[in-house]
């Protein structure tokens, strides 16, 4: 089939979505409210799905549509719903208190973005579609990592982990023509799903035993 839209438009779309993902990520970094950040994650996943969709459409690779579907179902609908429900049920205090204050964390994120571009620069040639998507992906991974460090609440850490996951998936889409083989995609997807569920269970138990979700309270095991 011949695509109705030309490659460069596709490339621009992908680049746009990628950058949007990055923006959302930065918003996450400075976000104070828990539920909002969950929604932000959902939005980020939407963009990811969008990129995947573009790729799928442009290459007519049908199994990538599956990826799109999975992302939409899983990361946009199910997981946010799950987390949201948990947050409400355990009526956690909404306020997020990060370790590093926002200006500093913004600076750090800037640095990480720079690093991401540095690392990705040699590979721009590899990208079939759009440029510096890879850079965005790596940046997402790094900032997601930083987000984990910077958060105290268990749930927010899970969230950060998920953004890292998004970054990885973005890289997968960006670097490879047709995304990963379907079986791998499925494996990854279900792993992520199960992971979040198990994390949920743990968070629940922790909540019960510690009467708090502050991870920095988990520091009895020393030496």
């Amino acid at each position, binding site marked *: 089939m011949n695509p109705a839209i030309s490659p460069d438009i596709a490339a621009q779309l992908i680049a746009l979505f990628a950058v949007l993902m990055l923006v959302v990520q930065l918003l996450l970094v400075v976000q104070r409210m828990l539920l909002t950040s969950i929604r932000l994650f959902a939005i980020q996943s939407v963009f990811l799905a969008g990129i995947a969709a573009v790729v799928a459409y442009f290459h007519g690779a049908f199994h990538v549509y599956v990826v799109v579907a999975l992302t939409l179902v899983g990361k946009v609908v199910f997981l946010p719903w799950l987390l949201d429900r948990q947050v409400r049920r355990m009526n956690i205090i909404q306020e997020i208190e990060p*370790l590093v204050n926002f200006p500093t964390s913004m600076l750090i994120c800037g640095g990480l973005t720079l*690093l991401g571009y*540095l*690392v990705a620069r040699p590979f721009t040639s590899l990208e079939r579609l759009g440029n510096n998507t890879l850079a965005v992906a790596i940046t997402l991974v*790094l900032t997601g*990592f*930083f987000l*984990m*460090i910077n958060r105290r609440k268990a749930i927010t850490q899970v969230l950060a982990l998920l953004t890292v996951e998004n970054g990885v998936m973005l890289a997968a889409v960006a670097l490879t023509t047709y995304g990963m083989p379907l079986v791998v995609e499925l494996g990854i997807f279900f792993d992520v799903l199960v992971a979040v569920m198990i994390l949920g269970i743990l968070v629940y138990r922790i909540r019960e035993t510690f009467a708090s979700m502050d*991870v*920095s309270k*988990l*520091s*009895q*095991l*020393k*030496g």
Partner: protein
Amino acid sequence: MEHLPLTFLLLTLLGYVAGAVAGLLCLRAEKLANYGSFGLASLAALCGVVASVSMLAAGTGGAPQTVQLLPALIPYVRFTIRLDPLGLFFTLLVSLVGLALSVYSLGYARGFYGRKNIGVLGAFFNAVLLATTLVFLADNAFFFLIAWEIMALTAYCLVSYEHEKEEARNAGVLYFVMSHIGTGCIMLGFLLLFQASGDYGFDGFHALGDRMAAGPRNAAFLLFLAGFGVKAGIIPLHIWLPVAHPAAPSNVSALMSGVLIKTGIYGLTRVLFDFMGTPPNWWGVTVLTLGTISAVLGVLYALMEHDLKRLLAYHSIENIGIILMGLGAALMFLHSGHPVLASLALIAGMYHTINHAVFKALLFLGAGAVVQATHTRNMEEMGGLVKRMPKTAFFFLVGAVAISALPPLNGFVSEWLTYQSLLQGFGTTSSLIRLMFPLSGAMLALTGALAAACFVKAFGITFLAQPRSAHAEHAEEAAGPMLAGQAVLAAACVFLGLFPTTFLRLLDPVTQQLTGQQLSAQLGLANGLVLAGATATGGTVSTPGLLLMAVCLLPVPLGLWLVLARGTTVRRAPTWDCGLQGLTPRMEYTATGFSKPIRMIFKALFRPRREVQRDYDFSPYFAKNLRFDSHVEEVFQTRIYRPLTWLVWRMARKMRALQAGSLQAYLIYIFVTLILLLLFAL
């Protein structure tokens, strides 16, 4: 027929295995375990003596015979033994001592009935004998290291056999830690050789040093010196020795002091004379110096002890020093190209090695009997035992005379040889270094005299005069097997003392192998009656001759008795008590008091501290009761080892902060690692 000795040797190994198994099988039945394991051990050791003596007497010429014990079931490891003179000589040593010890243990183990598990003791005892024998016979570095480690392991278990006592536990740990560090050095040394030869076989190592570059060669020398030095207890690597040897059961102490530390000597001899080629001069100088230091300091520390077994342990350090003097001199002679003198010095060292094995084991056995009888190791609570344990006392006296290097017993002979080699060494070089020979000779004299003083104290305070405690008063003579074991060693002392030239024949193959010389013909004059230095003009001595002469002089005192002292009577009366009412043991000279002059003279070394508390009514001279403490500082312990360990622990504690329990911190570790690696990969 010529395979007979080999058969005996294999029987030895099998016997030890069987003994160990027997011990483990009879864990519950202690009598059975005792007779089974120690009986088999004695038989095995006997076979070992027969085998090694016959092989040495046959003078195994040419390439050493090798025997594969087990098929190569696992890659890179060959369980092969080699029957070369050096190994056989040490096998003789371990078997001879092992024989006496096993017999002794038959009686000694009874002391543990109902308290401890004899089966375990017997099993480990056999195991350590087996491992030691294999150390002496191993044909490649891999096998050697395995045997070496098993020996250390079993010895550790034996040291902490009475693990209910904290002393034994700590002693075991200290011993094993030091020994393991030593093993590490040895391993590195062998690996350096392996790097040069590309194989683990000892044949490949022969005279390898000449083909090695100077750097690795010297490194290997130092590593081996340190590694085997730990095992031998060379000062300053000795700290484990006076702790571990006393803590073990006495038969084990005897084994460790008599045989196990000799594995260090074996290793040094094997490496320095077989593998390392012609040594540079400073090797010999180092060994000689270390030997001298160990000898003097060892005996000085021994003098300060009033714990009988610790005292003996320190004497082991002293004697190792004397052995090293011989080896060091031999190295220097090899360097300056005097093979005959080198052989003489080597013979002196080897002779003293077996002598020390014999009389030190004997002394430890005596000490063991005494400790078992008096339930204390503190000499201040003994005394008067010569009347209650006459036989043990006699054997101990033999050992004491021997270790004090007094004629006509064996210690005198080997030290005489050492003196000879040192004196003749003076002519081998014209450099200032040669002053070392007579000077270390003088130090050897000092050592001998101090040793004599120390054993006057040890024997006098322990066995003579009045008993100083109720235990000592009710002590009983040791059991038959224990006496038998001591008798064997005492006989060995006498034999080695009176018939050195006969024994030297057994050393011919050893020197032949290591220096290409055979001296027994030169050393034995007047068909074996007289022992000569390497040259007949150098000086001669004849212990049997002197003994004969003494017998010939007997008429003099006899005549005087018969002529002058006829009709005189002998009256027993109490010792003069200065007019006080009766002499009590508390008035006797104590061990601490006996060694006080030495302590004062060597104040700088011992840094003695004393606390005196007296409470009195009107005048300090009439104290109601008086408490006196006197401590001697062990410099190496307090100045080197303690600070070192303290430092290590402190750093370790600081490190714990890394694992402080904060998830964020852990994430940061990973994050930082990732970023660093990314930058590295760029």
